[in-house]
């Protein structure tokens, strides 16, 4: 139980996937203009990342390792993730039109979100068991959502601020992210 809580705290706060591991930067900067879209993207990533963590773990343990083709990991995982995203999109569309309305536009973007592939590979590299992998994936997704929503909140306010012309857009977002990253560094040493 203690191990799991350490994994969660470490993934959400200390080694935050966006602010300290630099995975998923593209959606972090691209979809953080509004809090509502940030929440949508965060939910979609949470959904896909958790499932991807589960499935890639099975693929690694029951396909790649028994066949001794661990070197095909990258190729296998990216195909699994791409198919998973398609599948999730289809299922959500059929079963819950409301959810599809909320998540639909974000789902196709997730295939090329390096957070999903990154966390799946890291789960294997850290030799996590099944439960640890799922928890770690879920916690990382929560960390992603947290960073994304915080960022969106700040950017909504930045809209009204008087920013020097050359800093407008991406530069000020990056510097905001730097300040958030510094703040998150304060969590190091929590465990």
């Amino acid at each position, binding site marked *: 139980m203690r191990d799991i809580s350490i994994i969660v705290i470490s993934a959400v706060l200390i080694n935050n996937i966006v*602010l*300290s*591991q*630099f*995975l*998923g*930067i*593209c959606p972090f*900067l691209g979809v953080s203009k509004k809090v509502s879209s940030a929440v949508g993207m965060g939910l979609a990533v949470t959904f896909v990342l958790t499932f991807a963590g589960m499935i890639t773990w099975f693929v690694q343990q029951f396909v790649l390792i028994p066949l001794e083709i661990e*070197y*095909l*990991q*990258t*190729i296998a995982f*990216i*195909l699994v993730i*791409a198919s998973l995203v398609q599948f999730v999109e289809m299922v959500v569309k059929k079963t819950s039109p409301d959810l599809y309305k909320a998540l639909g536009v974000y789902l196709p973007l997730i*295939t*090329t*979100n*390096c957070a999903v*592939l*990154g966390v799946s*590979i*890291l789960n294997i*590299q850290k030799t996590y068991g099944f439960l640890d992998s799922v928890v770690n994936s879920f916690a990382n997704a929560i960390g992603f959502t947290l960073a994304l929503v915080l960022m969106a909140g700040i950017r909504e306010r930045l809209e009204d601020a008087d920013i020097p*012309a*050359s*800093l*407008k*857009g*991406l*530069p*000020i*977002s*990056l*510097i905001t*992210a*730097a*300040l958030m*990253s*510094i703040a998150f*560094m304060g969590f190091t040493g929590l465990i």
Partner: protein
Amino acid sequence: MNLAKTFSKGIINENPLFRLMLGMCPALAITTSVENGIGMGMAFTAVLLASNVVVSLLRRIIPESIRIPCFIVVIASFVTITEMVMHAYAPALFESLGIFIPLIVVNCIILGRAEAFASKNGLVPSVMDALGMGLGYTLALVTVSAVREVLGAGTFLGIPIIGLIDNPALVMILPPGGFIALGCILALLNKMQQKKAQSN
């Protein structure tokens, strides 16, 4: 479009990192030293070149409707080859780039070039496109990592710089430093562009 232009557009006008804002993750994560920047840039260029060549050669054979999965398989294969070669012959670099080598797969630039350029053009232009984009991305990575290494560690390519080595601004090689460096470089580029626009 002539070949020279195909090559040079990736370096300045359509620089993947500074202009198209693609491939941000490695640009922030591994740019803690110039050596890493060069290594990542070379690995990236190798993958981009190989995938552009194959996609360009196979552009008439690959069925339209499944081209994206095919591209992904091609790119992932070359990434894996690059990863294995680096692991075997440049283990120190392999260690320090870590997870970001397999993640070249999801670097939007490579899939983007396969889709937007190589699948529509012949072999020679595709090679020039890959070299230009690769060089542009490498230069961008080296710029970011030079700023971070010089300010954050007081060294350049591991060589100490007198006056900076004793009291480096550590934060620049920590995660926040990546955001700060890239943000300031982009702001500087914006400023230069505005000046140019005003004088015209």
